[in-house]
């Protein structure tokens, strides 16, 4: 199907468009953070715990930092973390799905067991264990999340490759003497990757939630303004300054919803037989 036809179908899907709009706005906020945020996310700009409205649109936190500015900069942290983890998952998923799908047999059996181990691991517990042993740097978080979420991509890729490899064009390539790596790279990968891309978009949503969870549990870099950490700090102020807990939560939910709608939309426009949800 042509790219234009795909785009037309995507744009007719109201939820998909809403998702795209949310994601584009968040990306803009992340890129333009230094320009659009009223203050530095670290600067102590006024008295602590100011109410929202007035001089500070969303109020200030306990130390007197502007909540709106921290939220805007938090978009950057959240997106960078999630995109990093999802990219790692995409690469691992594609490669580790191609191999068992193409070779089959005992290779496939071996990979299936490995997928199973990774799918069964309670992800957050593993991340906690790794953070406890290796420290809480953001890069470690990105890598661990990427390393734990790839199996669903690999499974999709494997299924696609298995159904494709019986097709005449693959047989033709084999008959012409193409090496397995060439068949995988040139013939199978481009034809199999679409659903994996849709799934990766959904994984970005999941990774945003994980990043927020790590911040909330006190496992993110304290020098970065992360949404989860803002919620962690807000816990102590729930009685009186409850708004401190409202805004970061709304930001996380909106961005996650955006990527979910976008991912579902991509999936639907690639495979219109899917029941709309």
């Amino acid at each position: 199907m042509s790219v234009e036809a795909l785009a037309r179908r995507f744009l007719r899907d109201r939820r998909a468009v809403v998702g795209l709009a949310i994601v584009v706005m968040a990306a803009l906020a992340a890129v333009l953070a230094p320009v659009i945020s009223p203050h530095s996310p670290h600067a102590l700009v006024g008295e602590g715990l100011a109410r929202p409205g007035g001089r500070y649109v969303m109020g200030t936190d306990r130390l007197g930092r502007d909540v709106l500015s921290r939220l805007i900069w938090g978009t950057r942290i959240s997106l960078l973390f999630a995109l990093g983890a999802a990219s790692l998952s995409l690469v691992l998923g594609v490669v580790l799905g191609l191999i068992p799908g193409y070779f089959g047999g005992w290779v496939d059996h071996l990979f299936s067991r490995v997928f199973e181990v990774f799918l069964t691991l309670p992800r957050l517990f593993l991340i906690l264990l790794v953070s406890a042993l290796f420290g809480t740097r953001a890069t470690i978080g990105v890598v661990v999340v990427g390393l734990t979420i790839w199996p669903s991509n690999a499974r999709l890729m494997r299924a696609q490759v298995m159904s494709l490899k019986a097709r005449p064009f693959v047989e033709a390539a084999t008959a012409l003497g193409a090496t397995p790596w060439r068949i995988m790279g040139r013939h199978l990968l481009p034809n199999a990757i679409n659903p994996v891309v849709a799934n990766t978009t959904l994984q970005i949503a999941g990774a945003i939630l994980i990043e927020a969870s790590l911040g909330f549990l006190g496992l993110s870099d304290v020098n970065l303004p992360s949404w989860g950490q803002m919620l962690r700090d807000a816990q102590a102020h729930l009685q009186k300054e409850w708004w401190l807990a409202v805004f970061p939560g709304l930001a996380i939910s909106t961005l996650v919803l955006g990527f979910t709608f976008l991912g579902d939309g991509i999936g639907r426009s690639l495979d219109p037989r899917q029941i709309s949800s």
Partner: protein
Amino acid sequence: MTLLRYVAVRLLLSIPVILGILLLNFFLIHLAPGDPAEILAGEFASKEAIQAIRTRYGLDQPLAVQLVTYLRRVMRGDLGFSYDYNQPVAAVVASRFPATILLLLSSQALGILLGITLGTLTAWAYGSRLDTMVSGAAAVAYSLPVFWLGLMMILVFGIWLRWLPTSGMTSILGPEEGAGYWVDVARHLAMPATSLALVWVAPVVLRITRAGVVEVLGEQFTMTARAKGLSEERVLFRHVLRNAMLPNLTIIGLNLSLAVSGSILTETVFGWPGMGRLMYEAMFKRDYPVIMGVFLITAVTVVLGTLVVDLLYRLFDPRIELR
């Protein structure tokens, strides 16, 4: 293949998975910066204590020997010793296990009930405004950070309305036995279980049920049942729901590890004394034996839970051949 044989094969197949988890646990501590004996001994251990652990766990032996020692120890149920609790790790974990299971089971039950009801309803009204609204609400619920929903529930039902207790599993001066005790526990359980059910169980079950019911409604046996003149309720309960339920079981199985992960957040927000909370506290006290023990036990619980769900699936659907 008989069912018994199938159970045996599935059990055998879960051995490599559990072995994989054990290997991961073992190698992580060796890959970590620092001496494993010092890590296991805790922050304030003396030189003698560290040396004692090194000898006891054979940490001065070659890696292969250590691995065998480790596997042997775990097989015997020895998960190490927590110097923080001054108890064997197995005992510490066991004392927190029931609270997590209670939270998990009640949130799964609540979420499944809600998801199936709403899923059937939306499928019945497929494409209507009600369908759009409920399905949209489910997508939003699925996007909420479970700990944030917890905070918002505490704010509304605990702080503003004062209907429910916001932390712990029992009241300090509450009844210690009988019906009064269980009412007290139920009141404490209400918010954590609901938040988990709303975010991590109900939306998924709703989605699967809706898709399943929509599909089954179009199948021939449904039309036959209607043509026979059966009442709509009978068609729905006898023919449609029974067949639409099956995919749910698979999803619930797959979701188990997610739900366990979610419990750590919920337990932290609500101070629920389960394994998630234990893990969280152990993190900050650098109580590595407990961290690794909790990780191992939860992972194995998930493997076994998935196995049970898988077996139920085979039992309920006679069409599936036991391979």
